[in-house]
């Protein structure tokens, strides 16, 4: 993602200046406008539906803007919506997700960054073999490892608890994060590392005093990647936790797709929007770093 820098050449060079309202521009911007509207529409639909009352929804269609704005669906989605058994709304799921995401993000980044550092600067015999297995492991469908992990978690007494899910997220975050950190640390000038070695700094000394302070951008990318990934996870949540510990995505699905009672579309959309709010705000605030995070997955080692 390099910005196209303005041409600073003198003389008659570069492409021919174009008229603003040329046929090409009308076509280009027209197409882009239609596409942008299409992509933005679902977000708009979520917002307007969540602000309408049920009678208004029954009269209109999904795109009609609210006549009488109400925030009741939001309140209901947060604290009263029913999942079939209980009616605690999304709040329980939200706090579960918070309690899952924070430790998972910290733990997975700590482990992966130290590991990536060891792979980049302190290579030992056999390290590449394990690293290769780890990277290939990222392609194995999760379904294959689903049940063996159930058994492992049961053995250590973490099956069905938040701790177990944190462990699972740490394991499955490892390939991409290790790759990310390894590549970043490899790109740092080697002289730095050598100078610190000459000065007598050891493995941890170099890591904490030199590598970490120099790598804040990549740590930010990793945090963005992990927070959105873990927050959006559904499969691991539904397999490794129980009704008490379900993360927000699972509660959301249970609320909206619950077969009991009258469908309250406004509450459903408020709940959907609430669940999407965390990754969405991260996305809109972080901008370029988010793009860098997803591109990191595509950059080969």
């Amino acid at each position, binding site marked *: *993602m390099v910005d196209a820098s303005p041409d600073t050449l003198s003389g008659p060079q570069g492409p021919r200046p174009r008229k603003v309202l040329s046929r090409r521009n009308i076509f*280009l*911007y027209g*197409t*882009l406008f239609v*596409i*942008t509207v299409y*992509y933005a529409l*679902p977000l708009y*639909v979520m917002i307007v539906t969540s602000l309408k009352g049920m009678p208004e*929804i029954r009269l209109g*269609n*999904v*795109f009609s803007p609210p006549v009488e704005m109400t925030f009741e669906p939001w309140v209901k989605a947060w604290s009263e919506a029913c999942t079939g058994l209980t009616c605690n709304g999304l709040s329980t799921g939200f706090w579960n997700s918070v309690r899952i995401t924070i430790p998972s993000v910290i733990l997975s980044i700590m*482990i992966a960054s130290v*590991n990536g*550092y*060891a*792979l980049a600067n*302190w*290579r030992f*015999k056999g*390290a590449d073999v394990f*690293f290769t297995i*780890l990277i290939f*492991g990222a*392609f*194995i*469908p999760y*379904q*294959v*490892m*689903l*049940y*063996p992990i159930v058994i*492992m978690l049961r053995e250590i007494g973490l099956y069905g608890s938040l701790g177990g899910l944190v462990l699972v997220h*740490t394991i499955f975050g*490892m390939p991409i994060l290790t790759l990310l950190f390894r590549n970043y640390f490899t790109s740092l000038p080697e002289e730095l590392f050598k100078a610190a070695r000459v000065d007598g700094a050891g493995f941890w000394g170099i890591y904490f005093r030199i590598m970490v302070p120099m790598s804040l951008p990549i740590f930010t990318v990793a945090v963005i990647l992990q927070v*959105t990934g873990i*927050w*959006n996870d559904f499969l691991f949540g539904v*397999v490794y936790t129980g009704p008490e510990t379900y993360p927000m*995505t699972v509660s*959301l699905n249970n609320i*909206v*797709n619950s077969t009991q009672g009258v469908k309250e*579309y406004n509450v*459903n959309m408020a709940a*959907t929007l609430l*669940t*999407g709010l965390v*990754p969405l705000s991260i*996305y*809109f605030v972080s901008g370029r770093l988010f*793009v860098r995070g*997803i*591109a990191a*997955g*595509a950059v*080969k080692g």
Partner: protein
Amino acid sequence: MASERPNQLFRNGSAKIAAIPMIVTALFVFVGGTVWTVVYSFTKSGLLPRLNWVGLDQYERLWATRKWLVAIENLVIYGFCMLVLVFVIGFVLAALLDQKIRFENTVRTIILYPYALSFVVTGLVWQWILNPEFGVESIVRGWGWESFSFDPLYNADIAIYGVLIAGLWQGSGLVMVLMLAGLRGIDQEVWKAARVDGIPTWKTYIFIVIPMMRPVFITTLVLVVTGIVKLYDLIVAQTGGGPGIATEVPAKYVYDMMFQANNLGQGFAASTMMLVTVALIVIPWAILEFGGSKNRG
């Protein structure tokens, strides 16, 4: 880096300690877990995994089950359409954005935001938009086209295409961003040379630029394909596999067998089939990509 001194177990000890989580994960979870599942797919495990061998019985039963066949058919339809469309849309969007346009950041931000949302959220929004009573169908009918019918969530024949619409909306931004990065990596001289030779723009894209972007296409392909095989949350949220079994997919079949039908053996056999599918794609790619240069880290 590491000098050529003889290797000892405790040399470089801290690095080895730091790598323990990776070693444990690689050996026990990735290798161990995979081998375990494949081995147990040849057993009669029901509620609990047990080592009573039945040979290929689970696989024979799997391929005789209608739900699995529907799941495979859906994956093929979804996968093929997704693959073609996501690349066409992603590339066209990237090419449009690469025209030195104004508001590039805004447009990119809007097209990519669905990718930040979870599949559950995506599925639920589209479930609502495609609702025949209030959504697209009723709106088009309201415009005067009374016989218009588009209800992929209730019509088993086209249900999977309803999921496809949602999947494309969510995933095309990612492909666009990767393609855009690829386009920006093309030397501007190539464009100048093509213009001098009088080659039309579309021909330059198809015959010159796209072949040059081969690495980007391949990595994107691997990302998209592995994503397609994993398709699960979107189905659960948007259709729940319905109407009937019209939108079942392999990943959902595995989950249902393992955790709802208490038929672990079937689940293991089905997940092994998923593993084989991914291996058939990833291994040739890995050989092509890394086979030639083994000295690269």
